């Protein structure tokens, strides 16, 4: 069934269908609508979920930890400062291997204060022990929220669904919603795991470890991320199987990346999130003019799909990597450095450049993407470029 929903509403709808045991959240722009909408479901008796209106994001994630440790399905939604305030707790949840699900409306970090979109918040959490999957649209945000628990519970890692603040959170569009029965059947029941409510087998969880054991625990997390590579796409394939929609375009969940006109492309842009749309429009227009250009959208960011990106880049000569955070004192943005190191390891001779865009929601339209393609078509171009920046 199609409904006109914003990204936030689509996520709340998926949460209603999942009916997690616990939702603990603190409101923050631009994700506030999620806890608002969900608390309506609770108030109207549409879900049996316990909604915990916590006093901070730090406590939101802490309550999720308590709930998940008891064997409950726990979810939260946040953005920006909220995610940053959660940081310590995010790392803790990852280390305890608790399958919590978080929806983050990607937003800039203060100072100066900006309530608008960019990826500064989520990029800071890239090593926090969370699977990070970027939704490009309200539809994808809905789909991925439904896929999150089956992934999280299979590999015992928390999952963060990242979607762009305002551009996705507030964009109202047609979203194909599964029937409640189909959605619930897909999400299923959580597998049994040792938990704190099992009085027969009292669990000591989160204890102290000496240098003799800590490293092995971290190695376990590392392995879980490696196994998640396969699990994310397996769950994606299963999701497509129960879905009446056609996924035969480039946006199939069977791959951690979405490719657009990359097969014979000489110049490719690589991007995360909603900006892929503008990049694809630009590429389509340039294709009409005979230019061999394409776009890769990275959907699963952690674990990072190095192999898939390398394969999709094929024999392209130049790659423009778009980062929606400002590399401060670094040789480039996070995505840029990830992909450069992949190219280096593969001994690829591809030329790369970094394009910093959309910071604090600076406009990024097809014409900006067209300019990037034009920059890359030149013989020489700077390593780091700022898109649509004054002066």
């Amino acid at each position, binding site marked *: 069934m199609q409904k006109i929903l914003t990204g936030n509403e689509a996520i709340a709808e998926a949460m209603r269908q999942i009916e997690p045991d616990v939702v603990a959240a603190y409101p923050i722009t631009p994700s506030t609508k999620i806890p608002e909408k969900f608390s309506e479901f609770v108030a109207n008796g549409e879900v*049996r979920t316990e909604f915990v209106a916590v006093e901070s994001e730090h406590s939101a994630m802490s*309550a999720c*930890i308590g709930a998940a*440790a*008891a064997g409950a399905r726990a979810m939260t939604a946040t953005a920006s400062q909220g995610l940053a305030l959660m940081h310590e707790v995010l790392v803790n949840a990852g280390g305890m291997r608790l399958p919590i699900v978080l929806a983050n409306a990607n937003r800039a970090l203060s100072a100066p204060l900006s309530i608008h979109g960019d990826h500064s918040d989520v990029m800071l959490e890239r090593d926090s022990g969370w699977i990070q999957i970027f939704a490009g649209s309200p539809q994808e945000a809905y789909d991925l929220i439904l896929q999150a628990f089956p992934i999280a519970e299979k590999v015992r890692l928390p999952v963060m669904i990242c979607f762009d603040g305002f551009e996705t959170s507030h964009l109202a569009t047609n979203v194909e919603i599964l029937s409640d029965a189909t959605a619930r059947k897909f999400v299923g029941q959580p597998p049994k795991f040792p938990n704190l409510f*099992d009085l027969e087998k009292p669990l000591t969880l989160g*204890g102290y470890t000496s240098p003799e054991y800590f490293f092995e625990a971290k190695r376990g997390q590392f392995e879980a991320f490696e196994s998640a590579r396969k699990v994310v796409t397996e769950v994606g394939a299963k999701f497509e199987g129960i879905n009446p929609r056609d996924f035969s375009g480039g946006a199939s969940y069977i791959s951690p990346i979405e490719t657009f006109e990359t097969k014979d492309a000489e110049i490719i842009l690589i991007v995360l999130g909603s900006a892929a749309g503008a990049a694809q429009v630009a590429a389509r227009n340039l294709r009409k003019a005979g230019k061999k250009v394409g776009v890769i959208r990275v959907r699963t960011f952690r674990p990072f799909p190095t192999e898939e990106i390398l394969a999709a880049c094929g024999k392209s000569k130049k790659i423009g990597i778009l980062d929606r955070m400002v590399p401060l004192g670094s040789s480039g943005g996070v995505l840029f450095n990830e992909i450069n190191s992949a190219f280096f390891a593969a001994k690829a001779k591809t030329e790369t450049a970094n394009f910093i865009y959309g910071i604090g929601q600076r406009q990024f339209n097809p014409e900006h993407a067209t300019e990037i393609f034009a920059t890359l078509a030149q013989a020489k171009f700077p390593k780091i470029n700022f898109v649509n920046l004054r002066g």
Partner: protein
Amino acid sequence: MNLKTAASRESRLVGGHRLCPGCGLGSIVKQVLSSTDAPIVVVNATGCLEICTSAFPQTSWTVPWIHSLFENTAAVASGLNAAHKAFARKNKLTGKAKHLKIVAFAGDGGTYDIGLQALSGALERGTDFTFVCLDNEGYMNTGYQRSSASPLGAATSTSPAGNVLAGKQTNRKDILGIVAAHRIPYAAQSTPAHHLDLLAKAKKAIETPGPAFLNVFSPCPTNWKSPTAAGMEICKAAVETNFWSLVEIENSKWKLNYQPKERKPIEEFLRNQKRFKHLLAPENAEIKNRLQTEVDERFTEVCKLAALG
């Protein structure tokens, strides 16, 4: 509450832990958890108790136990409580788990200071749990830095007794008053040396539906620089000098559970603890007198509140 009954219950914190000799924590935890037959799940803040009882691959806990972080203990408890409510609604609880009680333990750092916001939030939300503050008046796990529970004049590693400043310059925070201001069903203060008092209060706190709070005085011979065997005597001196009153607040009604026949001077509490040694020197009489005034004023306030009934 019968001492024999409590003592004959199977211990929920067993031996082999690494707490210092003479530490109050083990004694308090054992007494609190043996006050009831109710099944318990423990949430533990970062600190001595957590580190000394949970070092992987061993554990001293025979009940389910979780440690997450330093400041989020009450919020983790809220999550457990929320899961319990949701499971009850979905008919997912079986056997004893239906009657599970949540008990949180945190030091004064995890209560008065870094954990205060999460505690306040959980109390306001009506989380059904008991939060036990193990108050040893400083950050002991890291070598006694001052906390907002450290008494006026105490020499700590971040408020040392120097030539100009004679220990901590400010009074303790009134945590019981702060908690009472949340108007929760039950809050009380006790010590591990007052067994019947502590057992009765712990039982009441755990069995009372909704949030309950216990502030328990916890001797730390290592950092108070007091004789290992003197912990219980110091607890008694703390009560006899009115430095630590045995009080309880039930549905916002204050009650003084014990009043010394004759209030002993504060020196009775200070001596035996080298953290206060400098206060007994004549040149520091002023700060010691201020501490005496603080103790007396607080006690008068408690008496007034208790008289209101």
